[in-house]
């Protein structure tokens, strides 16, 4: 059977139906990503393209090749897991928004032209913002607004870039662009915002920790991966991206080490993982791009898994502050095991999924001759293990006993986490499953003695450093705090300086007004019955005469 409808359609229809139907129908929603995903998978590369003509313009809604298909499968899988994870909540907004959000992401990866992409790009922003708002706290509302502004800005830049690109080339097809023209810079920044490039990343670390437990799991899967997908399509082999990516792998881990909110730790670690993908795109060889795509695939699952475990803690305990957690393994043993699986996967332990994809990017880095950048990535790999691999499970589930004895996570959450865990181990142990779907020719073999041994050495000695620092009391304790990041510019510096300028201006206005009043007051008031004496009158008339003479004199020369 050949799949021949736009793949996003069932998601939007499902979201619309769910919005009006009673809440008990929500269980059917699980079928949407499942059935649609299976049909799409069976159809594979035979899937038909689908165009819609609007006036003189054609929207290419379904452009299918191996790259878009792989992301399509991934988003179906992610949506399936997220929906199961969300089934226990009574708040329908989140499920509707989540479905529409997943649909937008699928629409974006199958878009064949920039106008279609723009539509889905903005839909991604709109639908996902509700997942933040749904937390219904003041902080979440404000973070959601900031998130929305930045996301919409990315869309506006995309539209701007696309129009300029059309003027330059006469085409709106999404294909290799490469840096050069002004249009390409606009597009790069538009994608860069959603891919959380350094200095453009704060929407992610700001909004993700504020969203609902379910919302963050949805959020972590789609937006950033759409950006990675677009970068892989339009800017492969762009040298600049290697450096941007290397920076992205390194700077967030410092923040992750000192951050107290464990979902924010994961948000920083998400940027770090995106860094590996951006590096791969920058290198641009078949191995590197395969590595990027494979890592995106794995990252959605293991990062989703980690966010799910923290979401479970948030649901049961009410917060995920490392400073006030600990000892939860006693009553949440299953969640603990799932968290450890996620942690092992993100740290790229042999037999877990990160191992078979991250190393592709690392190997490609060496092949491309970037030895020092490779060292940076290796540093980041050790750092990931340190903050995401050890810190998250250790401070949440072990460390010192907080005395809290929350219930185990709801069953549907456990099922979702279980599916993700099985996938992490399955892909890590039988990488051929994933490798066979990769868009470019792949001959990479992850499991050899050198790679396994060196990776184990790296990880074990990172862990040893953690143990040693902890024993020596050098490890920074978890503290209730926020750490300033680039967002400080628009959350503090800009409002403060704006208010300061406003205050100064209003002072200036007041003094101008009082000056004017003083001048007006100094003009003598001539009332009908006030009597000025003759001398004053003569003096004033004389001045008036002099002024007139001077004016007459000047006009002669004008």
């Amino acid at each position, binding site marked *: 059977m050949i799949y021949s409808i736009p793949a996003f359609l069932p998601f939007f229809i499902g979201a619309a139906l769910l919005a009006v139907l009673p809440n008990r129908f929500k269980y059917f929603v699980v079928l949407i990503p499942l059935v649609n995903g299976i049909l799409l998978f069976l159809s594979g590369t035979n899937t038909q393209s689908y165009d819609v003509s609007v006036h003189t313009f054609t929207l290419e809604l379904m452009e299918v090749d191996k790259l878009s298909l792989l992301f399509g499968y991934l988003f179906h899988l992610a949506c399936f897991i997220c929906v199961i994870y969300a089934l226990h909540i009574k708040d329908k907004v989140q499920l509707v928004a989540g479905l529409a959000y997943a649909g937008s992401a699928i629409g974006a990866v199958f878009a064949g032209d920039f106008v279609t992409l723009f539509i889905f790009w903005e839909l991604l922003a709109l639908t996902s913002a509700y997942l933040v708002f749904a937390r219904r706290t003041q902080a979440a509302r404000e973070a959601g607004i900031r998130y929305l502004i930045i996301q919409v800005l990315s869309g506006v830049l995309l539209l701007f870039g696309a129009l300029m690109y059309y003027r330059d080339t006469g085409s709106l097809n999404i294909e290799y662009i490469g840096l050069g023209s002004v249009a390409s810079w606009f597009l790069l920044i538009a994608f860069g915002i959603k891919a959380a490039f350094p200095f453009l990343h704060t929407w992610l670390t700001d909004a993700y920790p504020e969203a609902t437990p379910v919302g963050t799991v949805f959020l972590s899967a789609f937006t950033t991966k759409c950006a990675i997908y677009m970068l892989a399509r339009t800017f492969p082999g762009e040298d600049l991206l290697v450096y941007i990516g290397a920076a992205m792998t390194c700077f967030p881990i410092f923040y992750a080490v000192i951050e107290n909110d464990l979902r924010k730790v994961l948000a920083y670690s998400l940027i770090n993982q995106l860094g590996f993908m951006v590096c791969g795109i920058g290198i641009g060889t078949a191995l590197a791009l395969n590595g990027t795509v494979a890592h995106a695939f794995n990252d959605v699952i293991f990062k989703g898994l980690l966010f799910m475990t923290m979401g479970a803690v948030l649901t049961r305990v009410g917060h995920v502050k490392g400073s006030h957690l600990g000892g939860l393994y006693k009553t949440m043993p299953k969640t603990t095991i799932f968290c450890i699986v996620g942690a092992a996967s993100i740290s790229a332990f042999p037999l877990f999924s990160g191992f078979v994809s991250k190393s592709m990017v690392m190997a490609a880095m060496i092949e491309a001759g970037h030895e020092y950048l490779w060292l940076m990535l290796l540093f980041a790999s050790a750092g990931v293990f340190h903050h995401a691999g050890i810190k998250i499970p250790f401070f949440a589930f072990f460390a010192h006993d907080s005395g809290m004895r929350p219930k185990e996570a709801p069953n549907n959450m456990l099922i979702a986490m279980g599916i993700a865990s099985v996938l992490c181990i399955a892909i890590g142990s039988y990488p051929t499953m994933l490798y066979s779907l990769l868009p470019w020719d792949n001959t990479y073999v992850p499991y050899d003695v050198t790679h396994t041994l060196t990776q184990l050495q790296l990880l074990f000695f990172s*862990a040893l450093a953690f143990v040693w620092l902890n024993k020596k009391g050098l490890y920074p304790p978890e503290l209730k705090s*926020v750490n300033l990041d680039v967002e400080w510019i628009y959350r503090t510096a800009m409002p403060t300086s704006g208010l300061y300028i406003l205050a100064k201006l209003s002072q200036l206005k007041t003094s101008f007004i009082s000056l004017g009043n003083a001048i007006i007051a100094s003009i003598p008031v001539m009332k009908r019955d006030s009597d000025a004496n003759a001398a004053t009158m003569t003096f004033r008339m004389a001045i008036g005469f002099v002024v007139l003479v001077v004016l007459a004199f000047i006009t002669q020369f004008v």
Partner: protein
Amino acid sequence: MSTDNHSHKKPEGEAEDFFDKPANVALILKVFYVLCALLVIADFVVHRHIYVSFEEIPTFYALYGFVACVVLVVIAKEMRKIFMKDESYYDERKDESEEMPK
């Protein structure tokens, strides 16, 4: 790996489990140290492929992993002096559902 085994806030009458006993934690750590040592020994026994000049250093990965993490933590701790602010620095966060113990 438990940092302070003495500050338990365990509810009364709860049985001690595996990780509560310091002896078990010490045992786990011992096994861990032995594994680390084995990995270092393996580096001299097994012939690794060398792709980058750095890798010629014996036990490069072990050294790098350890040093990287220590450097990471030391720098991050220094960063706290500049970047760490009170939790209510940006907003008051009054309406949060979570009741945080002081």
